[in-house]
């Protein structure tokens, strides 16, 4: 019942792209500009290249057991109890991130578009459509992503087109002033948000994609497209707003949309551009939420994950109001604990799996192929 959903490689590519863009589009430029100043866009390029290695690691893992999700893979490789324990951590992480993204969408709407609406109602509204999406299943999510990606790229194209007259190249000069050390150091948050967290895609990546050989390729291509979008946004933020303003803004790319002014006629279209962020955020949150719901169902060996969606959505909506008391706490937490949480689940755990798999290879191959 859970495994029947099939998505095409193209749909998978789109989901990867939207997942990569997700929150990064809103928050990454300011985080990068805080440390690397006007070289933020170089950091984004370096980060994307390093991120490809991480994606390669995920593809490697996915090859071994193409008919298992990440949770089942853990159990297969690490044994029943250790595997379940590790999977629990994984599910916990994706659930925390699902609620934190609900918080992001809530604060974003609350500070910029709907200041008089209480945040609780915004989060609940977002939670309701996410619950609906997951309830309808992966195929529906993938198909709607296929439609929304067009809207996304049309809006993106117009944003880039309209903002390009404002680009001041003085803002990015002198190029590469930050030095190699700073560049490498400040790539970590970028890698975390874009590629390390993509481990949750392993919940449906080898299993539910119809053409498995092509799927790895679309993982890479989707990631590269998403990365390019973020690089463009970072470059535009720094070159239009300047490094200092980019770092000072919480949502610099929204500020970017406010600066659009074509012949004193087309201006203040940022509310339209907010559609970009809502689309990307929605799909990223949905993927996190789907991964955590399916993960819990598979850890407990349930037949169907659907009954768990609504109660978990309720918990996520409450958590989204509680987990970050304010934006300062959020940024501080992301820079200290969040990075380590993501890296331990998204890099350390796969490496551990690789090591254990190398040791237990013969034994695992003998085991009968069970789903």
């Amino acid at each position, binding site marked *: 019942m859970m495994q029947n959903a099939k998505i095409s490689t193209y749909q998978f590519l789109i989901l990867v792209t939207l997942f990569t863009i997700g929150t990064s589009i809103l928050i990454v430029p300011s985080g990068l500009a805080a440390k690397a100043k006007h070289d933020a866009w170089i950091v984004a390029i370096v980060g994307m290249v390093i991120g490809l290695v991480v994606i390669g690691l995920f593809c490697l893992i996915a090859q071994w057991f193409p008919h298992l999700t990440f949770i089942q893979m853990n159990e297969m490789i690490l044994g029943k109890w250790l595997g379940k324990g590790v999977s629990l951590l994984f599910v916990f992480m994706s659930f925390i991130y699902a609620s934190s993204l609900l918080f992001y969408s809530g604060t974003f709407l609350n500070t910029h578009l709907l200041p008089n609406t209480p945040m609780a109602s915004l989060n609940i509204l977002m939670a309701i459509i996410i619950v609906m999406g997951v309830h309808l299943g992966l195929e529906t999510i993938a198909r709607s992503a296929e439609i929304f990606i067009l809207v996304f790229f049309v809006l993106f194209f117009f944003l880039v087109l309209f903002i390009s007259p404002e680009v001041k190249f003085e803002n990015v000069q002198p190029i590469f002033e930050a030095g190699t050390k700073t560049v490498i150091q400040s790539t970590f948050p970028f890698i975390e948000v874009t590629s390390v967290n993509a481990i949750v895609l392993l919940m449906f990546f080898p299993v539910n994609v119809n053409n498995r050989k092509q799927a790895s390729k679309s993982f890479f291509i989707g990631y590269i497209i998403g990365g390019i979008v973020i690089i463009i946004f970072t470059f535009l933020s720094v070159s239009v707003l300047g490094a200092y303003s980019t770092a000072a803004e919480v949502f610099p790319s929204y500020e970017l949309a406010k600066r659009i002014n074509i012949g004193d006629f087309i201006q203040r279209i940022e509310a339209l551009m907010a559609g970009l962020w809502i689309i990307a955020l929605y799909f990223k949150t949905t993927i996190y939420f789907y991964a955590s719901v399916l993960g819990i169902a598979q850890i407990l060996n349930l037949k169907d994950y659907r*009954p768990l969606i*609504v109660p978990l959505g309720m918990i996520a909506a409450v958590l989204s109001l509680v987990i970050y008391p304010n934006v300062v706490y959020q940024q501080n937490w992301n820079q200290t604990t969040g990075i380590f949480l993501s890296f331990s689940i998204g890099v350390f755990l796969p490496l551990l799996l690789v090591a254990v798999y190398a040791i237990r290879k013969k034994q695992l191959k003998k085991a009968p192929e069970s789903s």
Partner: protein
Amino acid sequence: MLKVIGILLIAAAILWKEVPPLLEKKDKKELVVFSILLTIGVGLSMALGLGKPIPNPLDFLTFVFKPIHDVFVR
């Protein structure tokens, strides 16, 4: 008080929608997990609605990852 009643009404609606198919299929395990999660959800929402403090899971994570963080960052 209004919030509590509202939350209970929503919980009732969820029960009314989700439970009959589970009983029909006799999925006991699903029913148990569903009830536990719904209880947690209702409990948390009520605590939030009544303005009671809810423990933040992120503080727990910070507690766990603080030693690792301190090792890496000087």
